[in-house]
């Protein structure tokens, strides 16, 4: 039971972080379909920090550096989306898809190159961080508390406050709903959309490192992030682009993802003798069902996906 709770919380953390990322981008008016690729780039950034710095810096510094570097990597990577969709008015769906492909391929190439440089016989795309992973975890009895859970809660609250209690949030959402209205009161739509996309990249980046460290002590980067970027988009839609509802939706999806890790420890579930692949499929099937029934009433930011053009009325 504790194990189920632990996995639910950590996977929900991933979904919350990345879905919040999507949420900021879409509230500014840019659809970020490249979350999957951005997660991977962020994960690589964090994993490399652990590979090179574990043991040479103190634990708090390591934790801080891993988080900052993965966020920074995601931010930089997402600036590609910003340039293409805001300045060159490219189709955001296509740019996002391209970022996913580029992310997976680019990260694999980089990690393999690093591995081969260190040891000519090693052509894998694996980074190991088992020793570092322990530093992120505090044992509370059977429950492994991860500092990432705390970071997620802090970022969740920050996101809520930023969106609904500050002028930044008011202006950001105005740009995603009616950019012409925002421009007419002197708000720079370009700047707000840049901000939305970059925040989205930072959150997806940290989401990526949390994901690969959720249940593993090494990661083979050519495997990608198993569709968690897209799952997060489903969470975002199910959460109606609102942080508080995104958190609840993420817990639901996280629960189903956690089940596939721990179902064997529940006697009655194991006794049903259902193949493990069925449990693995659960979050994705649930997301299909949920979206099929809820997307009709969903209220996306009105101007998302439409490049801002000053001259249209």
């Amino acid at each position, binding site marked *: 039971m504790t194990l189920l709770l632990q996995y639910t919380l950590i996977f929900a953390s991933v979904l919350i972080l990345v879905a919040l990322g999507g949420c900021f981008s879409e509230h500014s008016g840019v659809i970020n379909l490249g979350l999957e690729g951005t997660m991977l780039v962020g994960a690589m950034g964090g994993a490399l920090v652990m590979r090179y710095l574990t043991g040479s810096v103190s634990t708090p510094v390591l934790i801080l550096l891993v988080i900052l570097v993965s966020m920074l990597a995601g931010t930089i990577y997402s600036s590609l989306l910003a340039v293409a969709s805001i300045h060159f008015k490219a189709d955001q769906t296509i740019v996002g898809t391209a970022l996913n492909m580029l992310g997976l391929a680019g990260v694999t190439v980089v990690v393999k190159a690093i591995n081969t440089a260190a040891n000519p016989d090693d052509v894998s795309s694996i980074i190991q961080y088992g020793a570092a992973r322990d530093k992120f975890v505090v044992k509370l009895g059977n429950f492994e508390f991860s500092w990432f859970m705390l970071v997620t809660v802090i970022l969740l609250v920050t996101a809520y406050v930023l969106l609904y209690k500050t002028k930044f949030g*008011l202006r950001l*959402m*105005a740009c995603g709903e*009616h950019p012409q209205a*925002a*421009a*007419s009161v002197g*708000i720079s739509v370009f700047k707000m959309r840049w901000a939305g996309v970059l925040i989205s990249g930072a959150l997806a980046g940290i989401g990526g490192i949390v994901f690969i460290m959720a249940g593993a002590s090494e990661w083979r980067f050519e495997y990608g992030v198993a569709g968690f970027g897209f799952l997060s988009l489903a969470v975002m839609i199910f959460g109606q682009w609102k942080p508080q509802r995104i958190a609840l939706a993420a817990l639901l999806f996280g629960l189903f993802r956690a089940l596939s890790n721990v179902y064997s420890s529940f006697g009655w579930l194991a006794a049903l003798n259902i193949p493990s692949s069925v449990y693995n499929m659960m979050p994705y099937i649930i997301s299909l069902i949920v979206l099929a029934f809820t997307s009709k009433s969903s209220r996306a930011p*009105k101007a998302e996906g439409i490049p801002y053009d*000053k001259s249209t009325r």
Partner: protein
Amino acid sequence: MDTPYIIEMLHITKRFPGIIANDDVTLQLKRGEIHALLGENGAGKSTLMSVLFGLYQAEEGEIHMNGKKVEINDPNDANALGIGMVHQHFKLVECFSVLDNIILGVESTKGGFLQKDEARKKVMALSEKYGLHVDPDAKIEDITVGMQQRTEILKMLYRENDILIFDEPTAVLTPQEIKELMQIMKNLAAEGKSILFISHKLAEIMEVADRCSVLRKGKYIGTVETKNTTMEELSAMMVGRNVNFHVDKKPSEPGKPVLEVKNMTVASKVHKNNAVKNVSLTVRAGEIVCLAGIDGNGQTEFVYGLTGLEPLVSGTITLCGEDITKAKIRERSLKGMSHIPEDRHKHGLVLDYSLEDNLVLQRYFEPEFTNKAGFLRRDNIRSYADRLIEEYDIRSGQGPITKARAMSGGNQQKAIIAREIDKKPELLVAVQPTRGLDVGAIEGVHKSLIEQRDAGKAVLLVSLELDEVMDVPDRILVMYEGEIVGELDPKATTQEELGLYMAGAKRDEVKA
């Protein structure tokens, strides 16, 4: 302060691809006056105001404020100079509250957090002072158009703007709301605000404005004091010729019935009752029948049922002796029904198609426009479009390849009318064909309708404008709550009597 003018726009020229929107235009606004800017659709009024508001930059010309030259490069500059604007299409975020929309862009914060309480107090005080009733917590998407407009006005007042631009503010309002707005504008001017009021409705300008400047096809025609002028003089300045406010037509000579509707019932989309209840009517060749009534009494649904946009619950429709009750929309079109729709953006045009493609929307499959292999015959489409543009005087920036979206409302309507009339229909259904058009264009539309009648076609006109109902048709049918409650002869009735029928205060048994 040695000049009486708060704002002067001197020799402004603004070009767009293929068109000069403003050609050496000068506009001088006095402190504390209501100054109307009059012009036909596409005369360049909105462009001129966008230049003043910083949304566009003029290629030539200067803007002076209190006699000093100023640069206005974006709405922030305009705002800093105290210039505010109520746009024709409101610039409101629909899912935000009224209050959020008002403070957007000028939010006050404390320690990084929004401070809405003071803003609310200020908004309520302004709302009280000028009689601008709003609910600050209501979402824009839930409130009436009138309240949305009051929100826009409060937005300007909240920013303490002294120069207020109203871009065709009455186009979207009910008569009652228009009256209120006129009073609000007068109050604002009395408080020392200077107002620019863009309109093509002469009666409103005569009532509310002190002076009026006229634009025609991008050029400045002149400025007059409203108390020294007449509506006739203004309209002549606007369209460049004398406009006949009354429709000249000879008596009708009705022939055989073209359209017969029997016991039509159409369901409503908004409530459980039927929107059209058991309506029967006949339109004969060579007559114009007007379906009059207050908006929302089933006229829209009747037309939807008639043209095939909605299925009937019961009843039959016969066109030229043929039952078309269950016919598809294209069949109805091919059998001689033309439809000038109420909402030209929704049902009239594909806004992102070119003008030429819009003009062949119902005919592209004919051999003239599609060859045997199934490919479009572009050259024929182009020459057909060129002919219609010439014949119906459809003006646009780039001719046949102009996107419909980029055309002015009046010219969009002309394009629809050209398309619908040129396919030589037996029955022309024209729903509010003059909505949003200026006097010159209205005259043209009425002339086309009467030409159709005189050519022996049947015309069914649906209108909400009393003047149009009295002037254009040969017979009036009044619709009230989904039923036809009276048949009137426009020559023998009065607007008062018509009003009684429309309000449901009077009814006759009408047989088809």
